C-alpha cells in the first residue's frame, strides 16, 4: 500500500471523491498555461475515443505554477469538448490537481501520480508531458491499449527523430540499456509512457524517493526498474519527436540525468544484467524508429575543440577513472586534426564501461565522474556527425546498430571490470 503521507489532505479528499478508476492520466506541470489547455482537450478526446466505457481521471501534479496552470486543468469540463467532437462519455471524466511543492521536481511529481494511481486502483496509467506540442488523441490509445487489453506492464514510445537529435540516447542510453538488459528499448527515457497499476505500485514501494536528487531521470529509473523486474514491456510509435533547441550548457544536466541514473541502477540490477547475453526487439506497435534527414547547422568544430581541451585539461581526473591504455588512445585522437579525427565505437564503449566501473568504485566523487564524461561524449558526437553527414536513414540506423553490437560484444569487459572491483 502507498505511503500517502506526503499527499495533501485536499488531494486525498479529491481522490476519495473520484473513487476507483480504470485509467489514470498523469500530467506533471510547471507554468504550462500556454500549452496545457489544448493538451487537456486532446487527452479527453483520446479517452472518449479509445476508452468510452472506462472510468478515467486526469491527475495533475503541479510544481508551483504561478500562471494558473492547475486552474486550467481542473476548469476544463467535459462539456467543452462535446460540441466540436460529437463524442459521448458513458462515465464521468474526473480532472483533479495538486500542488506537490513550490518548485518543480520530476521525481515528486511522478511519485504523486503513482500514489494516486495506487489509491484509485487504476488498471492502466499514462504519463504525458505538458510540453508535447504535437500530442494526438491516438497517443492515449497507443500507450494505454497494450496495458489495458494485452496485459503489458510498460509501454515506451518510439519516435521519428532527426538523425542528429538525441545523440546521448543513440550513442549511449539505447545501446547500453540494450546490451545490459537484452531488450531493444529505443526510448528508455521519455516524458511519455504508459504503465500498469502493478508496475506503478512496485516502483512506488522502492526506496528511491529520498536520495536527494529531486528525481532527476526518474522516468529512466522507472523503465530500468521494469526491465530489471522482468515486467512485460512493449513499444508504440507516436510519430515525430518535436525538435528542442538546447544550448551547450544543457549537456551536463542531461548527462547527469541519463548516465547518472543508468550507472546508479547497475548496482541493484547486477544479478539481472550480468546474466543477459545478446538482445531482442520487444513487441512494437507501429514503426520501430524513423529518421529525418533535413539539413541542420551544427558547430562541429566546437564539439571537437571541447573534446580536445577536455582530454588535455582533465588528464588527472581521467587517470583516476580510465585504464592507461584507454587514456593514451584518447590523448592520441585528441591531437588529430578535424579531418582525421575519429572516435571509434570500440574505444567509446570501453570508455563508457570504464566510467561505469569507476562510478561503482567511487574512485572520486560520483558527480565528478559523470561530469568528466561530457567532454568525451562531445568527441563521440563529433564522430557520429562526421560518419553520418551524408548518410541515408538506413545507413544511420546501420551505424547505430553497429554501435549497439559493439556494446553487446564488449559486455564481458564490463563484467570483468565489475569483478575486479570485488
Amino acid at each position, binding site marked *: 500500500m502507498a505511503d500517502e503521507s506526503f499527499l495533501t489532505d485536499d488531494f486525498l479528499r479529491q481522490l476519495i471523491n473520484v473513487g476507483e478508476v480504470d485509467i489514470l492520466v498523469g500530467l506533471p506541470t510547471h507554468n504550462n498555461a500556454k500549452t496545457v489547455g489544448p493538451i487537456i482537450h486532446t487527452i479527453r478526446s483520446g479517452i472518449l475515443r479509445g476508452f468510452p466505457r472506462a472510468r478515467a481521471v486526469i491527475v495533475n501534479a503541479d510544481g508551483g505554477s504561478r500562471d494558473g496552470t492547475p486552474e486550467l486543468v481542473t476548469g476544463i469540463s467535459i462539456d467543452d469538448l462535446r460540441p466540436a467532437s460529437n463524442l459521448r462519455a458513458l462515465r464521468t471524466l474526473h480532472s483533479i490537481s495538486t500542488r506537490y511543492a513550490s518548485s518543480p521536481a520530476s521525481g515528486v511529481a511522478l511519485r504523486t501520480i503513482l500514489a494516486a494511481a495506487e489509491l484509485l486502483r487504476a488498471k492502466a496509467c499514462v504519463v504525458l508531458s505538458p510540453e508535447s506540442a504535437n500530442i494526438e488523441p491516438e497517443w492515449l490509445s497507443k500507450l494505454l491499449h497494450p496495458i489495458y487489453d494485452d496485459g503489458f506492464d510498460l509501454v515506451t514510445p518510439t519516435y521519428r527523430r532527426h538523425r542528429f537529435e538525441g545523440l546521448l540516447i543513440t550513442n549511449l542510453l539505447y545501446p547500453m540499456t540494450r546490451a545490459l538488459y537484452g531488450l531493444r528499448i529505443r526510448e528508455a527515457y521519455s516524458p511519455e509512457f504508459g504503465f500498469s497499476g502493478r508496475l506503478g505500485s512496485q516502483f512506488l514501494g522502492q526506496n528511491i524517493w529520498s536520495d536527494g536528487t529531486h528525481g532527476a531521470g526518474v522516468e529512466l529509473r522507472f523503465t530500468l526498474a521494469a526491465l530489471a523486474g522482468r515486467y512485460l514491456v512493449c513499444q508504440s510509435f507516436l510519430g515525430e519527436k518535436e525538435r528542442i533547441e*538546447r544550448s*551547450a550548457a544543457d*549537456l551536463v544536466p542531461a*548527462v547527469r540525468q*541519463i548516465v547518472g541514473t543508468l550507472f546508479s541502477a547497475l548496482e541493484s540490477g547486477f544479478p539481472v544484467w550480468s546474466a543477459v547475453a545478446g538482445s531482442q526487439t520487444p513487441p512494437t506497435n507501429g514503426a520501430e524508429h524513423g529518421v529525418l534527414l533535413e539539413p541542420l547547422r551544427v558547430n562541429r568544430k566546437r564539439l571537437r575543440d571541447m573534446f580536445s581541451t577536455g582530454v588535455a*585539461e582533465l588528464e588527472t581526473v581521467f587517470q583516476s577513472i580510465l585504464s592507461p591504455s584507454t587514456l593514451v588512445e584518447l590523448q592520441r585522437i585528441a591531437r588529430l586534426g578535424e579531418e582525421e579525427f575519429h572516435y571509434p565505437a570500440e574505444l567509446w564503449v570501453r570508455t563508457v564501461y570504464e566510467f561505469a566501473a569507476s562510478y561503482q568504485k567511487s574512485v572520486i*566523487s560520483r558527480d565528478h565522474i559523470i561530469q568528466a564524461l561530457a567532454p568525451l561524449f562531445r568527441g563521440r558526437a563529433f564522430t557520429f556527425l562526421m560518419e553520418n553527414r551524408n548518410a541515408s536513414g538506413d545507413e544511420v540506423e546501420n551505424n547505430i546498430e553497429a554501435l549497439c553490437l559493439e556494446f553487446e560484444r564488449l559486455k564481458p569487459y564490463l563484467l570483468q571490470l565489475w569483478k575486479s572491483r570485488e
Partner: protein
Amino acid sequence: MREMIISELSQALHEMARGFAHFLPRLIVMLILAFAGWVIAYVVKAVLRSILRLIKFDKLSENAGASQLLTNAALPSATEMLSRFVFWLTWLGFILLGVRVLGILGLQDQIARFFLFLPRLFGAIFILFFGLLAASFFSRAALLAAVNANVPSPRVLSLALRSIIIVFVLSIVFEELGLAEQTMLVAFGIAFGALMLGLAIAFGIGGRDLAKRFLEKRFVRGKKEENEDELSPL
C-alpha cells in the same frame, strides 16, 4: 679523621643505597609503564590500521591529494603513516607518564605542557586533512565546470582555487598549533591579498576581452551565440 671519612662515606653509601632503593621501584614502574605502553600502542596501531583499511582511508587520502604528497616524499601510505603516528604518540605518552613517576624535577612542567598540546595537535591534523580534501574536491569541481563551460585556462582557475583553500587551511592549522600566530596572520593577509589583487588585475586587464565576453554572455539576453550547439542530447 679517618673515622670521620669512613663515617661520611658509609653515610653517603647508605643514602645512595636508600635513594636507589627509593628510585628502583619507580624505575621499575616506569619500565612497566613503557612496556605496557608499547603493548597498548601496538594494539591501538593494529586496530586503527584495520579500521582505516575498512573505511578505505587510503582512497580518501588519495582524493585529498595527500597520497601524492606522501609518494613524492617516498613515505608509506596514509593509513600506515597515521597508524605509526598514533603508535608513537601513544607510546611516547606512556613513556612520559613513566618519566613523571620518576619524579625528576623540571621535567614535570614540560610533560604537562606536552599533554596539554596533544588535543591541539590532533585538531590541527584533522583540519589539515579535511582542508586538503576540500581543496581537492572544490578545485576538481571548478576544473570540470570550467572545462564543460568552455572557459579558457580551466587548470589555472582550478589551481588558484586550490591555492586559496590551502593557504586558508594552513593559516588555521598554524593558529590551532599556536605557532607564530602573528607572523602567520600577517603572512596569510599578505598572501591572500596578493592573490586576490593578482586575480583582479589578471581578470580586469589581462582578461579584458574575456571579462567582456563573460559579462555579455551573462547579462545580455536575446543575442544568440554564434558557436552555440544546436543539438539536443535527449
